[in-house]
Structure formats: C-alpha cells, structure tokens
C-alpha cells in the first residue's frame, strides 16, 4: 500500500481563525471547510453527554471536598472539547489522555466510577487500557504525546491506515494542555509524527493556564500555528463549541486514517475551576476573566439552540434525572472502591516476582502479623 507522504493539500497554509459552528448565543454557523449536518436527536445526545460529563466532574469535586478523594482536577468549562472530540472517535481508535479528560473517558464507555480510584489513592490506574482503547491518565506533562505517536507508528507498520475504510482504518489521539506544548517530549512527538506521517491527532485543550502560568508564557503564536513549522496541519477551534470540536476532530482523524499523517487541533477553551482541588486560582487571575468565559459556557449554547429547535421540557428533565442518577452512582461506588493492602503493594512490579522482592513481601507480611506490626 502506498500512503501519501505529504501533509494534506493546503495543510501548511494554516487555519488559525477560530472554527465555530455554534455560537455562544445558540446560533448555528456554517463553515464550508467543516460541513456538518446534525439532526435534533443527535444534538440531544451530545447535550446529554455534556451534562453527564459535567456531573461526573462536579460530583467528583464534591467527593474530594468531603474527603473521599485526595485530589480532583476539574474539567468544568472544557466539556465541549472533550465530548466533541470524544464522539468523533471511532471504536478502533486509541486515546492517550492527560489527567483531565473525564469527558473523553466517558465517551469511551469507561464507568466514571473507575476514574475515581487514582484520585482516591486506591490504585494508580483504574482499567485495562486495551479494553477501552484508552490509556491510563498521564500525570507527567507531555509524555503521552510520544506514546500516541508510537502507537500511530505501529498502526503504520501494521497497515492499519489508508484502506479508504473508516470502519477499519485507525488513528491515535493524544490530549495535551497548553502548558504541555513547552515540553521537550511534545516537540519530539511532533517531529516523529511528522517524520513518519504517523496517523495521530494532537488535541490540545488550551484552557489558558498551566496551573498559575498564563498561555503567554508558553507561546507567542497561537498553538495551532506551531504545527506548520513541523510540517503538518494545525487548526484552531472554539473549544466550547461541541459541534465544531466534533467536526474538526473527525476531519483530522479521517485525514490520519487516509494516510495524510498527523494534525494538531487547538481547542480554545477555559478552565473555569481551579487547576486541582489543591489550587486557589484567585492568587493568579481575576474573577472578571472567569466570568467572561462563563458567558461562553459550552452547555448553555446547546440548550438554547435545542430549545429553539423544539426540544421540550420533558427532554431536559430526563437528562437532569439521569445526571442525578449518575451522581448517586458515583457517591455510592466511591466509598466501596477496593482498598489497597500491603500484599498488593508488591504485585505487578514485574511480570514475575524476583526472589529478593518476594522476601521483602513475606517479611513485611510476617511482621504485620506480629504485635508491633498489627498495632498501627
């Protein structure tokens, strides 16, 4: 199979104006580059996704406040970026997230309760990445972009792209933050992806901050513009617009599948909440700024649009009830997540248990069974 070894035609011209298909006031826009027909049923589905994703987030936040979780990184305000891109994925695609893509995990069918373990401190992961084609959340900033690129190189080696069959051709997607774009790993991922024309989409949720550090410290140009320098396409999209995020991500994934190589999507959004539950954003940004972004809420605009299109109160009430149920589920499951114990601490360091490690484990267990060990 011969794959095109150049970027998509026109890719390097850049599209640095913001792609928007649904304005904050609920008005539908059209963009000839990203034609998208959605019927009301489909949009109602995405509305439901957005509301449930937000509920996962606010519920987990509350659980942290009640001492049930050690930490939680809120995604409040970033739901459209996550649901739009998450719904653009095909089942066969593989996702490499950071710690903040709760909405994408939801799209992959991962029970949101499984997201809690790592933040409760009961485990370091939570699921089988192969089962959901969703890697474990990455805390080391930027590292996952190389993993996604390597996965995409594997897809090339396996001939899993370029058949013109969207059910079969496969792509990888890496999520990253605006801050992450400064990491060396990310620059290397861009070089590798371009060099091998790897079928990978870099989806940057530009939420304007890396903890307290504003975007200007990381870049002098729009993030999407960086892609051209590496030799692939960069697109800026309204990250609070679920339609635009869907359309742009789908196009990028399809291009990757066809063998046109990587692209970078900059979803321009805002972290309404704190960086994590340990953070106090008032130390570094003005409330007025946050309020201005609240007015561009990703869920409000879909609701307004749907109301105009005729979705009735019963529909919205049903979604609300579902969200309540999901919240109750999270509260109920969180306290029952299996507690880790001393024995399990020694499992899975390697595929086997070396003798010395087995000795450490057995000594620790024996000691725990003694008076002193049992005391604590």
């Amino acid at each position, binding site marked *: 199979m011969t794959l095109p070894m150049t970027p998509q035609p026109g890719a390097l011209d850049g599209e640095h104006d913001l792609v928007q298909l649904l304005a904050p006031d609920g008005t539908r826009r059209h963009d000839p580059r990203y034609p998208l027909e959605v019927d009301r049923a489909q949009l109602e589905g995405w509305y439901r996704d957005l509301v449930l994703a937000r509920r996962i987030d606010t519920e987990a936040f509350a659980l942290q406040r009640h001492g049930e979780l*050690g*930490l939680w990184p809120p995604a409040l305000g970033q739901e459209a970026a996550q649901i739009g891109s998450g719904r653009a994925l095909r089942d066969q695609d593989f996702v490499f997230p950071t*710690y903040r893509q709760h909405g994408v995990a939801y799209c992959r069918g991962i029970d949101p309760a499984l997201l809690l*373990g*790592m*933040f*409760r*401190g*009961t*485990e*370091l992961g939570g699921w089988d990445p192969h089962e959901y084609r969703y890697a474990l959340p990455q*805390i*080391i*900033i930027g590292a996952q972009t190389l993993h996604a690129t390597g996965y995409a190189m594997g897809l090339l080696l396996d001939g899993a792209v370029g058949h013109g069959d969207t059910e079969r051709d496969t792509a990888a997607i890496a999520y990253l933050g605006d*801050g*992450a774009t*400064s*990491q*060396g*790993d990310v620059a290397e991922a861009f070089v590798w992806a371009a060099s091998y024309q790897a079928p990978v989409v870099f989806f940057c949720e530009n939420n304007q901050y*890396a*903890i*307290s*550090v504003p975007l200007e*410290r*990381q870049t002098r140009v729009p993030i999407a513009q960086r892609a051209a320098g590496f030799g692939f396409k960069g697109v800026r999209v309204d990250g609070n617009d679920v339609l635009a995020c869907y359309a742009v991500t789908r196009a990028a994934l399809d291009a990757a599948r066809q063998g046109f190589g990587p692209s970078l999507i900059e979803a321009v959004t805002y972290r309404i909440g704190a960086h994590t539950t*340990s*953070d106090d954003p008032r*130390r*570094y940004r003005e409330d007025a700024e946050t309020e201005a972004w609240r007015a561009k809420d990703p869920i409000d605009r879909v609701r307004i649009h749907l109301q105009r299109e005729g979705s009735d109160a019963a529909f919205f009430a049903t979604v609300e009830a579902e969200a309540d149920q999901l919240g109750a589920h999270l509260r109920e499951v969180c306290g029952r997540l299996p*507690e*880790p*114990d*001393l024995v*399990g*601490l*020694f499992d899975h*360091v390697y595929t086997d248990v070396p003798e*010395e*490690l087995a000795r*450490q*484990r057995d000594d*620790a267990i024996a*000691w*725990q069974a003694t008076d*002193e*060990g049992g*005391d*604590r």
Partner: protein
Amino acid sequence: MTATMTLGAAVNAGLRAAMERDDKVVLMGEDIGRLGGVFRVTDALQKDFGANRVMDTPLGEAGIMGTAVGLTARGYRPVVEIQFDGFVYPAYDQLVAQVARLHYRSAGRVRVPIVIRIPFGGGIGAVEHHSDSPEAQFALTAGLKVVSCATPHDAYWMIQQAIASDDPIVFMEPKRRYWDSGEVDTRSAGVELWTSLVRRRGADATLIAYGPMVTTCLGAATVAAEEGLDLEVIDLRALSPLDLGPVFASVRRTGRAVVVHEAQRTLGLGAELSARITEECFYSLEAPVQRVTGYDTPYPPSRVESEFLPSVDRVLDAVDTAREF
C-alpha cells in the same frame, strides 16, 4: 535572634536572605512567581524582588535546568525549583550529563553554582509522581552534591549555604515536614553545610537518617526511651559527600546501626552507609547494619503509603533485630 517558623517558611526566609545578599541569585521554576509555588515556599518573593529575579518559566524541566547552566556563564546563581520529585526526570539529562560535569571537563575553569530545590518524599496522600525519593540517583552522580534539611533552622541556613557554594547542589526538601514548626536562630547557622549532626545522644544503638525520616527516628527514640532503651539519632544533612565521622564515632560506642530512608532499599543510601560503616567499624559492630526503607516497588497508591513508608514501629523492630542478633 530566634524566630519560630515552619520548615517551608524557613526555606522562604533563607531564599529571601540569599537574594538580599547577592543580586546575582535568581529563582526559576514553574508557578514559583505569582502563585508563590504550589507549596508557597517562594511566596511573595516575586512581588518583592521582581519578575526578573523570580521567574515563572515555561513548563519544561529540561528547559529550566539547561537555561540555568547558561545563566551561570553570565555570573548568575540560579536556584531552580522542581515542582515535585517525580518531575525531575525531564531535567535529568541536563543535570547528569551537563551540570555535573562542566567543572571537571573545563579543568575547573567553569563553575556552575546552581541549586536544585526538590520537594521530595511521601506521606502527604498524593497522586502518582508526587512522592518519590530520588536522592540516591543524584548522590551517585559524580559532580553533584546533595543535601537534605530536616528542621526549620537547617532549612533556613542550609539553603543559604548551598546558594553560596560554587558547586551544583541538589537540595532535597522534606515536603511532608513543610508545615512543621521549629526555632530558627537567624544570627548563626551554627555549623557548616557539609556536616552531619547528632540530634539525640544515646548509648544503645545509632539511628541514621536525613530529611523527613529524622523526625520519625526521633519519635522512635522517644518511644524507646519509655521502654528503657537509649537511642542515638544522627541527621546526615549532607548526602553527597557524606560526613561520616560522627556516624563512625557513634557506632563505635553503640555497636549497632540502623539506617532509615523512604527511598527504595536496593542501592539506596542505606547500601552505601552500610558498606562504609562495615568497613570502618567492623570490630565494633554487634550486629549487621540494619536498613529500614521503602520497598523495592514503585511508590504505591496513597491509601497504602503508610505501609510503604518507614514507621516508628518498623524502626524499633529493626533496633530489636540488631539488639537480639
């Protein structure tokens, strides 16, 4: 003059004093400026010294470490903050392949007076990569010096002494002790940077620790005292180079040594300490040197970290083992 401060506030005060003394001292790191660091260790320093001397950097540890090297060539004395222990690895190449070697390969013509501050260790219920103890990886690197403070007084003085030194120094801060208070004598450090200190006199066995485990060992000694056991506690302070004179003198008296650290056991500092004590005190030892350490696993999920971390009971158990040998 003495003042009561938390360990975190003492590092802050020490940084401030160093910056007042020498305007070539600059701080660099992620979130250290406006936010004052995620632990607030650099609180208000940007406000008082300006954004040129307290730099919020882009998000990249290799960048922080590598640009610090360049700044030293302009006569600056960078103090870089690595936000958490687990984030030092992107900087590892610059640290080990550049910072550690420049003085040597330039035959002493180039000095790299960089201090690398790293909040390290566990016990705060954190998520992955926020609780590591990588000190041995730096201590085994020729060309790097490594120290760790255990008290507010030492935090205040050791950071200043480290900044004044012309060698690159990895400064390990025991993050779980940031909120512990203690007396700081702001007139005098009392001792040089490269000295270990006896924190408690005792006759029956010698506990050797540094950073967060000094408090744990003092706790163990208090419990042991109630049982009539008299434990000596030594705070190493300097991890590379080691100051083992006080350790050897102590072990020659007590005949028993227990090394305590959070880091994994195999090739941790305990291995070196055990070897050196055995070499120097062989005929005084009543028992093999004991090690109480983290296990040879990655740092576990936080809800089981108390099993991983050396505790007072595990320390006392090791003392018993040494006594019953």
